[in-house]
């Protein structure tokens, strides 16, 4: 099944990004297709390139980058990103910045859309 995901919260302050990641991992393991992971609101900072959490903590941006490398489309909302000072050169590899139109397409193409937020 084609499943889309929207995240509305940034890393660490909220569990949203963690739950979304675990959900996406489990969906892929079951053979589902992730239509896209759309980072909206403060979620744009989930893919901040210069993130450097303590070594014994999970690296949220790296997690999303690794999923991106596996072919999952990780999309950062351009309008939300601009508000928060996120630019293409500040996001991790295998993720991209695009418009809200991408979220609309995810909603049209996916059979399910799950939101994670606060």
């Amino acid at each position, binding site marked *: 099944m084609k499943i889309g995901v929207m995240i*509305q919260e940034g890393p660490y302050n909220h569990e949203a990004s963690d739950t979304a990641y675990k959900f996406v991992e489990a969906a892929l393991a079951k053979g589902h297709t992730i239509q896209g992971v759309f980072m909206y609101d403060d979620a744009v900072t989930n893919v901040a390139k210069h993130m450097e959490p303590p070594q014994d903590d999970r690296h949220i941006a790296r997690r999303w980058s690794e999923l991106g490398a596996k072919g999952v489309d990780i999309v950062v909302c351009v309008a939300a990103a601009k508000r928060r000072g996120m630019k293409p050169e500040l996001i991790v590899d295998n993720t991209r910045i695009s418009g*809200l139109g991408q*979220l*609309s397409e995810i909603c049209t193409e*996916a059979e399910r859309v799950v939101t994670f937020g606060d």
Partner: protein
Amino acid sequence: MAKIMFVNRNAPHGTIYAWEGLEVVLIFGAYENELAAVYMDDAVFSLKKGQDTSALGIKGFVQTLPVLEDYGCEKIYVDKESMEKRGLKTDDFAIPVEVMDSAGIGKIMEEQDVLLPF
């Protein structure tokens, strides 16, 4: 084409969800989807007339509400219980809305393909 409903539950201004949620509607209007919005819990205050955010320095959105219809979001529902609990009446709203009881809201939600909470 998908039936998409924006489920607004957050109060305006205290957090950005109401505003960034509205921005999503404005973009989605350019795509071939069937849009609807419901306002429940504290989000009923987002529809209130006479909001003046000038002293906050936050761009208000009450003046944007009347254009929702032009952007394809023709159905605006308000949860009756949320409205009454907060002492609001239909006259208090800046735009015409359809007030529905809990069962009605539940039924409309069930008819959607995608529900996006803000």
